[in-house]
């Protein structure tokens, strides 16, 4: 029997969290969370079919409209950082990460949230991208598949990292089935109505899936196309000063998830030379993300793959 014909019974998803402002200048998520809190004020706890915790992950960064205060909080959720002792000199985000782990986790325990939906924006032309740290979570992959069928205004893609949970450093790894919703392109510090609407729709559809799943709907399995992270590529830099000597080539700019082949242009130097791609065919994404200049990343490269998931239905007690 093909795996997709099999039916897996999985526990109901009882508790969900929606987090915005993990990066304080990625505004769609800040306003989606704010709008959800307004809805809760107006309609009470029945605003949604399942209990939802809404949280602004990095309130200080949100107030200052900055990505972070001391350190990128979305790199602080690996086991080592979550268990490091807090002192007076601990970075704000390490402290806050441990607070969030207590609130929404603890990571790896049965008390953790069933699902954290962490909301992000990117300056890259990535449409709607769903990011998860593993390839083997059927709940998350089913939600991705559902969003891919329901959302047609923008491309919906799945990005997987394939790291063990203890090494996963992003907020959603605190929950049992979390993922990030990344929508772009949007400049940091700006809220675009079209991008906000896409993100809100993605959150609403995720809640919709969970409700249907919990109510007994069978979600048919099949193949989900995903991109697996392989490596990053930095900008060409001056060897002494480390300043950029080239920009993303106009023929690569905004072409996230295209297929890069040998000989394709990557960078256009300020003196007019084209730097070309010389390796095996892969797919670039996060092309020209503002926050990645300091991380020495011009873009990531990923391999396209098919993940096969079984049909799923909620386990009846």
């Amino acid at each position, binding site marked *: 029997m093909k795996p997709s014909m099999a039916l897996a019974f999985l526990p109901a998803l009882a508790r969900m969290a929606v987090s915005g402002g993990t990066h304080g200048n990625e505004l769609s998520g800040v306003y989606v969370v704010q709008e959800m809190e307004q809805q809760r004020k107006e309609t009470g706890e029945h605003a949604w079919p399942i209990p939802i915790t809404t949280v602004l992950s990095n309130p200080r960064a949100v107030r200052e409209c900055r990505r972070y205060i001391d350190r990128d909080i979305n790199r602080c959720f690996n086991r080592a950082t979550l268990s490091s002792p807090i002192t007076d000199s601990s970075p704000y985000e390490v402290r806050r990460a441990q607070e969030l782990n207590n609130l929404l986790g603890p990571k790896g325990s049965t008390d953790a949230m069933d699902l954290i939906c962490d909301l992000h924006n990117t300056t890259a032309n990535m449409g709607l991208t769903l990011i998860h740290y593993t390839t083997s979570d059927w709940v998350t992959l089913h939600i991705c598949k559902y969003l891919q069928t329901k959302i047609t205004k923008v491309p919906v893609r799945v990005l997987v990292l394939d790291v063990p949970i203890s090494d996963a450093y992003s907020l959603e790894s605190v929950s049992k089935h979390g993922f990030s919703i990344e929508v772009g392109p949007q400049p940091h510090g700006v809220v675009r109505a079209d991008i906000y609407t896409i993100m809100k729709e993605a959150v609403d559809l995720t809640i919709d899936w969970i409700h249907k799943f919990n109510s007994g709907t069978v979600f048919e399995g099949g193949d989900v196309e995903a991109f697996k992270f392989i490596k990053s590529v930095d900008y060409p830099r001056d060897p002494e000063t480390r300043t950029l000597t080239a920009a993303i080539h*106009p023929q690569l700019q905004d072409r996230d998830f295209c297929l890069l082949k040998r000989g394709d242009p990557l960078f256009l130097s300020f003196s007019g030379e084209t730097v070309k791609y010389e390796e095996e065919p892969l797919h670039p994404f996060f092309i020209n993300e503002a926050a990645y200049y300091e991380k020495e990343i011009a873009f990531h490269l990923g391999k396209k793959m098919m993940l096969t998931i079984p049909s799923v239905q909620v386990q009846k007690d």
Partner: protein
Amino acid sequence: MSSRTNVSCLHEARRVAIFGGTHGNEMSGITLVNMWKQNSAEIERNGLLIKPFISNPKAVEKCIRYIDTDLNRAFTPENLSAPDVEGRLYEVQRAKEINRMFGPKGSSDAYDVIFDLHNTTSNMGSTLILESSTDLFNLQMVHYIKKAMAPHTCLVLLNEHPQLKYSTTRSVAKHPIGLEVGPQPQGVLRSNVFESMRTILKHALDFIEFFNSGVEFPPCTIDVFRVQERMDYPRDTNGNITAMVHPHLQDCDWEPLNRGDPMFLTFDGRTILYEGANTVYPTFINEAAYYEKQQAFTTTCREILAANAIRKAFK
């Protein structure tokens, strides 16, 4: 019969500065200026002293707009004449330094031309910003640049509004010109935006070189967009925005906005319409740095300015 009596004779423009990094996260100007500081061959012109300059180095280092206060609002008479005191805001101190190096503002010792390089998150394309409708040198220069850039469009924004005009870094010079190219997110360098700005500057320097060599530029007219009004977002009693620029207005810089057109969309999906009596031409629509300045967009009206012929004054 040619009207030889209608040629305005202007002083030679010998000292020119190119400012990048007035805002430390607007990357085209920062990258161009750093490149030209290392190798100035591309910007050299006969008889011209051209100085590429990073206006706000501390902000550039941190890739933020400013440290204490917006440098591009800091060149007020009060700031420029204030005594040197401990604990002064960084940008006020910097404004005084820049005024010493390139001014003093309003004096005959000031630099002839300053180009101030900016980017915007708004979909403004290539925009040249003027502060005076009567600066003939500048009017002729932007006319030259527009023609040279064609078919690439270069629009002209005129901010001569008595209340909305502000004290820019470039206002230290006799002939200040703002270059604003977008859309580009803060902290990002886009190749096409970078190259547009580079080309605009090439044409601008060519103009100055021609002018200084004695070329006469005939009378011309320039289409401009004159700043009228600043429109803020709808806000709640705590000052937080309650709506976003409407998708029909987003990215429509320079296009007519008529009474009844959608303007804002609230977070819960309600449309707010533009209620102004006259058609306006919005610009700086959804600029990231203007949320804190209470500006969702600026309205402009279209105007045609006329400029006399100009040529360099004989000694």
